[in-house]
C-alpha cells in the first residue's frame, strides 16, 4: 500500500504544464496559437475541442491524506481522450469527440428516496459544500486497463450527511443524465437507461469514496463525467457513475446498468479482484495506459491496492460469489 503523507503542493501546481503538454498536445497548442494569431479562433476550437476545456478556470484544492503517493499520474491527454462513456459512443475516442453536446450549466442533483426531506442541490452550492481535496487515485477498468488520475472533490460521506438519509436507507443509487438530445448514443446503445449505479451505505460512507468535480486541478472535462461524478478507486471503473443528476436512498439493492446487461460478467460489488476473472478475460494483469506497449503489462492488486481502507467492508463475504 502506498498511502503515505501527501505532498504539500497539489499536482495542479506542479504538473500543469509539463505533464499536459506532451508532444502531441504541444503541437496542437502551437497550431491553435498560430490559428488564433491569424484571427481564426473559431477554427482552432473546431480543430481541437479539448483546448476550450483546458482554458477553463482552476479549482482550489487542498492536499489529502487519502491521496495515493508513489505513482505517476497518467497524462491529461490520455485521461481525456480514452474514455468509456456510452452515452457519447462506444469507442474509447468517441466521448472526447461527442461530449461537447452535454449542457453542464445549469445543473443540479435531485435527492430523494429515504431521506428526511427531498432536496435539490445546485452544482455551484455543491462545489462549495466542503473544501475540494486533490486525490490521486489508481483507476482500474473492468476491461483490464488502468490509469492514475489526480481527481478533485471531497468525500461522498460529507454530501450524504447533508442529504440526511433515514436510518432504514441501506443503499444509495446514482442516476446519470438521460437526455438523448445531448447524448444521442443513448438511442443506439442497447442498455437500460438512465445509467444507474449503486453502493451499500457503508461503501458510500467510506472516506475513499469521492464526490468528484475535477481532475488535474480543473473542472471535469465533459467526457470524464462533468460536472459531478463519483469515484470508487477500489472498484472497477463502471461503478463510478458520471454526470449524476439524481441520488436516491433506498432499502433494497438498486438496479445497476452493467449488472442488468450481463449479470454473470458484472457483479453488483465489482471490487477490483485479480483472483476473480471476468468470464471472458483474466483480471490478474492490467495494461497501463500511456506506457510503451512492451512495458504496459502490470499485475493487478487486490482492491486495486486500497485493501487497508476497504477490505474490512467485506469481511466474512465470499468475494467469488459476491464479485
Amino acid at each position, binding site marked *: 500500500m502506498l498511502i503515505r503523507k501527501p505532498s504539500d503542493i497539489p499536482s495542479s501546481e506542479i504538473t500543469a504544464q509539463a505533464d499536459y503538454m506532451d*508532444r*502531441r498536445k504541444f503541437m496542437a497548442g502551437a497550431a491553435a496559437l498560430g490559428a488564433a494569431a491569424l484571427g481564426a479562433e473559431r477554427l482552432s476550437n473546431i480543430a481541437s475541442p479539448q483546448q476550450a476545456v483546458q482554458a477553463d478556470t482552476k479549482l482550489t484544492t487542498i492536499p489529502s491524506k487519502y491521496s495515493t503517493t508513489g505513482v505517476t499520474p*497518467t497524462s491529461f*491527454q*490520455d485521461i481525456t*481522450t*480514452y474514455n468509456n462513456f*456510452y452515452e457519447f459512443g*462506444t469507442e*474509447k*475516442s468517441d466521448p472526447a469527440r461527442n461530449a461537447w453536446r452535454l449542457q453542464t450549466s445549469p445543473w443540479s442533483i435531485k435527492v430523494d428516496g429515504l431521506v428526511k426531506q427531498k432536496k435539490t442541490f445546485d452544482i455551484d452550492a455543491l462545489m462549495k459544500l466542503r473544501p475540494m481535496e486533490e486525490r490521486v487515485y489508481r483507476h482500474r477498468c473492468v476491461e483490464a*486497463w488502468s490509469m492514475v488520475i489526480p481527481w478533485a472533490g471531497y468525500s461522498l460521506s460529507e454530501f450524504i450527511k447533508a442529504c440526511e438519509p433515514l436510518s432504514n436507507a441501506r443503499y444509495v443509487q446514482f442516476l446519470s443524465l438521460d437526455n438523448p438530445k445531448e447524448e444521442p448514443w443513448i438511442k443506439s*446503445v*442497447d*442498455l437500460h437507461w438512465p445509467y444507474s449505479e449503486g453502493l451499500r451505505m457503508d461503501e458510500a460512507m467510506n472516506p475513499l469514496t469521492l464526490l468528484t468535480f475535477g481532475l488535474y486541478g480543473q473542472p471535469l472535462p465533459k467526457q470524464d463525467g462533468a460536472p459531478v461524478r463519483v469515484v470508487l478507486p477500489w472498484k472497477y471503473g463502471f461503478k463510478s457513475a458520471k454526470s449524476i443528476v439524481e441520488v436516491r436512498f433506498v432499502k433494497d439493492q438498486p438496479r445497476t446498468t452493467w449488472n442488468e*446487461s*450481463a449479470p454473470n*460478467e458484472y457483479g453488483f460489488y465489482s471490487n477490483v479482484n485479480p483472483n476473480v*476473472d471476468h*468470464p*471472458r*478475460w*483474466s483480471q490478474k494483469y492490467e*495494461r497501463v*495506459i*500511456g506506457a*510503451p*506497449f*512492451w512495458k*504496459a*503489462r502490470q499485475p493487478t492488486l487486490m482492491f486495486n491496492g486500497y485493501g487497508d481502507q476497504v477490505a474490512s467492508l467485506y469481511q466474512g463475504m465470499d468475494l467469488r460469489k459476491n464479485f
Partner: protein
Amino acid sequence: MPRRFLVALKFVVFPACLVPLGLLVYRGFTNALGPDPVATITHTTGFCTLYLLLISLAITPVRRLSKHLAWLIRFRRMLGLFAFFYCTLHLFTWIWLYSNFDVHIMLHDIGKRPFITMGMLGWTLMLPLAATSTAWSIRKLGGKRWLMLHRLAYFAAIAGVIHYWWIVKTGVRTPWKVTVVLAVLLLARMVWTAMDAARRRKVAVAV
C-alpha cells in the same frame, strides 16, 4: 487484362497490404499508438485479418459477375496469405503482450475463454491453407481436393466473426457490418452452387 497490367497491379496491391503494418511500426517508433497501444495493435491486426479474408472470399463471386473480371483470381492467393500474415501477428500480440510467453496462461485461456478458443480455431483453420498455397501443392493434392480443402477459408471467416462478437460487450453491435458481408458471401456461394447443380441436371437430361 494484359499481363503487363496485372504485374503492375500486383506491385501496387502488395505494398498496399503492408500499409497497415507500416503505419503500426511508424506509430510505434513515434510513440503515436494512442493511449492504449496494446489495444491499437490488437485491433489493427484483427481488423486487417477479417477485412483481407472477406475480400479474398469476395473475389470468387465477384469475378463470376462478368467474364471481364476473371483476372481478379490472380489476387486471391496474395490477399489470403496477407490475411494469414495479419492473423499470425494478431496471435503473436496475444502470445507476447497479453500472455508474456507464459504457456500456462495461454493454455488456460484457450480452454476457458470461448473468444480465444474461437480465435485459435480461426488461425488453425487458415494454417493448412497458407501451407498449401503454392502451385506445387495444387498439383500434388489435385485440383478438386485442393478446392475442397480451401473451402476452410469460409469456416475461418465464420470463426473470425464469432470471435469478434464474443469479445465486444453485450449491447454493442459494431460487428454487424462484417457479419452482413460474410452472410452475403456465403449466400452467394450457396445460390450459385444450387444454380450449377440445376444446370448440370439440365445438361444430363439433354444428353
